[in-house]
């Protein structure tokens, strides 16, 4: 595994949890973004993710470097899966270890926000009656752009 990677196969949580753990870590936070069946009353059949792989991995590593600078002592791994994902599949996983828990929570949440801003990955939602690439231009009534 690489600590910042795009993969095309199912994401194994344990592998990334093990990677960030070390004798100085008192806290580990793991976030997974999973494919949800219902969004705003519309049923998703599956999702298709696409990435500009080399740039996406570079941007994930940059986010990791930002985290290490802002929260000294954290160790980070981020992986995003592409291709077709079924309901409950993990699309993205962020693992953070830290000597203390506060940084592990904060840094982890920072990572997902940054991923949604800068990493060249795109999601297409496929429903029973259609499909659409999701992006910032698309807003559901009364909602932000966040999907998980």
């Amino acid at each position, binding site marked *: 595994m690489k600590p910042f990677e795009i993969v095309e196969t199912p994401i194994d949580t344990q592998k990334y949890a093990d990677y960030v753990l070390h004798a100085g870590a008192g806290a580990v936070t793991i976030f997974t973004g999973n494919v949800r069946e219902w969004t705003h009353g519309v049923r998703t059949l599956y999702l298709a993710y696409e990435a*500009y792989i080399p740039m996406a991995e*570079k941007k994930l590593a940059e986010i990791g470097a930002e985290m290490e600078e802002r929260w000294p002592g954290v160790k980070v791994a981020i992986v995003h899966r592409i291709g077709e994902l079924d309901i409950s599949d993990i699309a993205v996983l962020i693992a953070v270890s830290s000597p203390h828990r506060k940084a592990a929570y904060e840094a982890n949440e920072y990572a997902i926000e940054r991923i949604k801003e800068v990493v060249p990955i795109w999601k297409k939602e496929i429903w029973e009656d259609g499909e659409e690439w999701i992006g*910032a231009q698309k807003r559901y009534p009364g909602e932000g752009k966040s999907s998980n």
Partner: protein
Amino acid sequence: MIKVHYFARLRELTGKSEETINQESLTVQQLLDWAEETYPGFGKDMIHVAVNEEYALKDDVIQSGDVCAFIPPVSGG
């Protein structure tokens, strides 16, 4: 020769993942204008351009040999 990548909606709109443009040099804005003209509905106002895997500004200059990518609004996570 400038290589450009298309992703997601743009890949479907253009019907291609990449192509090579026969130009020696042009600005990011010029590349976007060219794409909008070539592919109606491209939506250049919402699209960033990456040059050699880094986000570029509208007046940055692209040189022959550079690898570009059109980056529509991202939706990872």
